[in-house]
């Protein structure tokens, strides 16, 4: 969207809307929230198939007792990469894709608040997952220590170890940038009259979970960086011999990932409830103020699904049955 004002009485053809760029540079340089949202969703779909193929290898091996197809170590590489790809490559980008498409439309904004950041936060993803997938071809194979990356087992990973950590850093960075963009958009770019309490449920859940992601991802990044320094720089965060504790990593990891997981499930429940029938429901809820009973539950993602579901269902029955 152009933010400059033109003298429209004297405009010539060059000031007309040229439409998007032609060719592949449209997608590389785009700042359009729908283009970026589409790229996010297509990317998530590709990752769904890649992570799904890994799940198929796991299932293939498990079809019957004994080992028929892959070695145990490769099996563990598949479980580890499958989970990382599905979480960071599929679920999170899919939700950012939905956010890109729907949040500006739902709150009446012309685009996301930070379009170039939006472009960047998407284009980090192919490189990050490319890095993660490239570990499959490295000496010693991909990480096989499980998606939770617990030390000391994770420290036994071969040459791919630093690449996997860096991939997690990049994926986290993409999440943080996407979350910043969503918060800034929701806080600053609502249409006149679209107060916070009139926002659709999907926007609310994304606002809350974007804050949670900003709080959670640096913790995860810190945890995996400590793994990195334990491996290469002689620290002992997670090694008892040097005064550390392997369980510390589990605390760091889960303090970050429970937030991330609940935020994913929160958005999932919200989007499946709301955005599947946006036009029908919006007449009832999006345009009406929330009662205060729903506000606390929006602030509490872990109970979000449970506490809002029943009152929300009752309300839908009471008000939207026509």
């Amino acid at each position: 969207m152009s933010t400059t004002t033109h003298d429209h009485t004297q405009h010539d053809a060059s000031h007309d809307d040229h439409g998007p760029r032609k060719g592949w540079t449209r997608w590389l340089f785009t700042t359009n929230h729908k283009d970026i949202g589409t790229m996010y969703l297509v990317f998530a779909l590709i990752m769904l198939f890649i992570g799904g193929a890994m799940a198929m290898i796991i299932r293939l091996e498990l079809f019957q007792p004994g080992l028929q197809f892959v070695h145990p170590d490769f099996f563990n590489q598949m479980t580890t990469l499958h989970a990382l790809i599905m979480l960071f490559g599929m679920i999170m980008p899919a939700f950012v894709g939905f956010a890109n498409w729907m949040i500006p439309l739902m709150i009446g904004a012309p685009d996301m608040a930070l379009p170039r950041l939006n472009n960047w936060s998407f284009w980090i993803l192919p490189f990050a997952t490319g890095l993660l997938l490239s570990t499959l071809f490295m000496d010693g194979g991909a990480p096989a220590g499980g998606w939770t990356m617990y030390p000391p087992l994770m420290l036994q990973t071969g040459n791919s170890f630093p690449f996997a950590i860096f991939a997690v850093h990049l994926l986290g960075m993409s999440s943080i940038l996407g979350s910043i963009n969503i918060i800034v958009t929701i806080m600053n770019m609502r249409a006149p009259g679209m107060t916070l309490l009139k926002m659709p449920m999907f926007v609310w859940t994304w606002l809350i979970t974007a804050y949670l992601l900003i709080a959670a991802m640096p913790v995860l990044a810190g945890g995996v960086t400590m793994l990195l320094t334990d491996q290469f720089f002689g620290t002992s965060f997670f090694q008892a011999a040097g005064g550390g504790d392997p369980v510390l990593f589990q605390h760091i990891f889960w303090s970050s990932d429970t937030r991330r997981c609940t935020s994913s499930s929160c958005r999932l429940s919200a989007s499946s409830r709301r955005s599947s029938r946006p036009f029908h429901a919006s007449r009832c809820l999006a345009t009406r103020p929330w009662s205060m009973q729903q506000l606390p539950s929006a602030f509490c993602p872990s109970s979000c699904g449970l506490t809002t579901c029943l009152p929300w269902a009752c309300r839908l029955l009471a008000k939207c049955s026509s």
Partner: protein
Amino acid sequence: MHDLLTKVCRRLPATVSTLLALLLTSPAYADWKLNMTRGVTSTANEAYDLHMLGLWVSTIAGVIVFAVIIYAMVAFRKSKGAVPATFTHSTKAEVIWTTIPALVLVFLVYETAPALIRLDDTRNSGMTLKITGYQWKWQYEYMGTDYSFFSTLTESSNAARQLNSGIDPASVEHYLLDVDNPLVLPVGVKIRYLLTANDVLHAWWVPAFGIKKDAVPGYINEGWFKVDEPGIYRGQCAELCGKDHGFMPIVVHAVPKDEFDAWLASKKTPAVAAN
């Protein structure tokens, strides 16, 4: 469509009562092992009882909640001419649906907390066993006797589990659940165990004992169990520990106390002779 719904509604009570009858006559499905099984230690049986308590509490809550939802959906549907209510807030309703779940939770904590406290009470134990996890085997040490040994997957299972071994796992007895040197323990004795690992995280898991605890390198976790019935009990490593995580089973032979003493004495003698 409406006819179908009416038919469904008319048959609903009969269907529900049939399902309930099936549920209540569940002993008929004795070999249908869907539920958690009872164990052979007080810990395992307490866990089983608490599991059943929690399951029934949530079942009752689920039945009540879904009954209300389904009744509302069926009885107040549009074709019946239902008129939407216009109120938006009810403090009474909110107090009720906050208080009842809170009371249920307090009740569950009241039932669970004593069991958790007993779980950590290792006082007055009859013997101490040290368990150490390795990639990929277990070491057992009878503390105070100098006697320790390693316990690894049996050769027959190990041969069958190799990629394209050509050996049918069904032909191997206790495939992946048998070891060369099983752990031997006395029944009726409170056994305190110390759990650690030598390399990476492991977890010692024997379902019949109700025990699943992490073995952390450099740290010692402790707990206790008392086996009530003699028998052979099997378990596995329960914390991903590398490529052979699935191939380091646990086998415990629980034998009467005098038999155990005789076994331990026979094992200790060669070690003393060697000295």
